């Protein structure tokens, strides 16, 4: 492993993403990617009494599923990196408390899933173990309750708002394997361009995504056309458009092979999700469900996955603070 440029790490013996699993809620199951997910729930409570318990159950079952699919006994998994959006990351810590795998709770807002992949690959390449588990979850109802309003409040969502994805994505990263390989990682810096509107997260996060994207291209010497697909986590329609235009002003044309997980996961017209999906599970489930299968089927050979996060909470929003954004990128190649 070696550091290249300012903020990118290149792996000499790149770790493999061995297996992924995804569970999504009913609304995601109505979306265009439904057939790619491992399990679609019929009800957001999933038999639990509270939204928080439901989210814990989703991440727990997703993790169990990825372990079962991979065939690796859970005793052989050395670390677990997981996170979510609820206060103090309780969905992951409560959901995974019976897992018996050394646990790192991580928080990168909606960028958590890729943050987990970055940390896992550094750990494994550094020789700290053979297998690491990465997981992230979010739930529309628990996120609304914590960040916005009670579900039954009769308010209107502005057109720039995004819809938190209900679900969880999990992946097992192995030190040795047959690919898809994690070849480069570019951890992002916190970037704040002063956007204060909590209903326009895409615009708040787009500058961070641009920052990481430029750093990645500069450090690796690659150009956008090197990748079959460049995917951001949850910039949504507005953030996607902003990123394309701003990248263009910096001399990078990403129009042809760039898309956003939040744009892919819902049908904007039919599902009325306004600016698209968001949440840890947005990038988590789209990668674990859709992108990983595209890699397996060799439809994509090289992708740059860049999850974006808005590092804010409801207190800072009420205090009128602006929203710092972050984006972590990982290059996955066959």
């Amino acid at each position, binding site marked *: 492993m070696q550091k290249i440029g300012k903020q990118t790490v290149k792996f000499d013996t790149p770790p493999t993403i061995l297996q992924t699993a995804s569970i999504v*809620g009913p*609304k995601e199951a109505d979306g265009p990617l439904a057939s790619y997910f491992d399990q679609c729930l019929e009800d957001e409570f999933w038999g639990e009494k509270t939204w928080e318990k439901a989210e814990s159950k989703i991440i727990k079952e997703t993790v169990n599923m990825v372990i079962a699919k991979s065939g690796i006994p859970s005793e052989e998994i050395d670390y677990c990196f997981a996170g979510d959006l609820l206060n103090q990351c309780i969905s992951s810590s409560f959901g995974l408390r019976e897992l018996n795998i050394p646990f790192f709770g991580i928080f990168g807002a909606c960028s958590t899933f890729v943050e987990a992949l970055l940390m896992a690959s550094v750990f494994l390449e550094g020789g700290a173990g053979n297998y690491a588990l990465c997981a992230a979850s979010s739930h529309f*109802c628990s996120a609304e309750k914590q960040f916005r309003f*009670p*579900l*039954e409040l009769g*308010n209107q969502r502005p057109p720039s708002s995004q819809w938190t994805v209900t679900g969880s994505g999990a992946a097992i990263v192995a030190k040795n394997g047959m690919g898809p390989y994690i070849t480069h990682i570019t951890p992002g810096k916190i970037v704040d361009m002063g956007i204060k509107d909590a*209903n326009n997260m895409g615009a708040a996060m787009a500058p961070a995504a641009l920052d990481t994207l430029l750093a990645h291209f500069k450090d690796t010497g690659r150009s956008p056309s090197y990748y079959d697909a460049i995917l951001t986590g949850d910039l949504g329609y507005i953030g996607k458009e902003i990123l394309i235009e701003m990248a263009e002003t910096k001399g990078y044309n990403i129009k042809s092979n760039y898309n956003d997980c939040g744009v892919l996961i819902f049908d904007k017209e039919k599902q*009325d999700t306004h600016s698209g999906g968001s949440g840890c599970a947005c990038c988590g489930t789209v990668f674990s469900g859709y992108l990983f299968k595209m890699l397996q089927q060799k439809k994509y050979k090289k992708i740059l996955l860049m999850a974006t996060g808005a590092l804010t909470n409801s207190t800072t929003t009420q205090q009128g603070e602006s929203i710092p954004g972050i984006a972590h990128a990982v290059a996955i190649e066959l």
Partner: protein
Amino acid sequence: MEFFASIDWMQMLRCFVVGGLICIIGQILIDKTKLTPARILVIFVTTGAILGGLGIYQHLVDFAGCGATVPLTGFGNALSKGAIEEVAKSGFVGAFIGGTKAAAGGIAAAIFFGYIASLISKPKMKKQ
């Protein structure tokens, strides 16, 4: 059916139009200012209380009936009107008693029904 014959339909139309117009003001505030629902409600109740205190809102009530009393400005007006009436009756203390007294029915109903609803019902996922 004698009751329906007694309804003044012109009054009903005034009520509909004025009530609707007050809601349009609220809608413009929502769409143009990004204010949260709580702030909109506060603006309406405070405006109503001030207009009520100045005696202006009563003209609107006389004109539109429930078109003016049912929106939250009417709630603010009722609070102010109650305070003024009670001050006239019992002086300084009246300022503290009057408003809440006038609105007591509404507040108590909201608390009670809210509690009942929480007993028997559960929040559900929004479909859209």
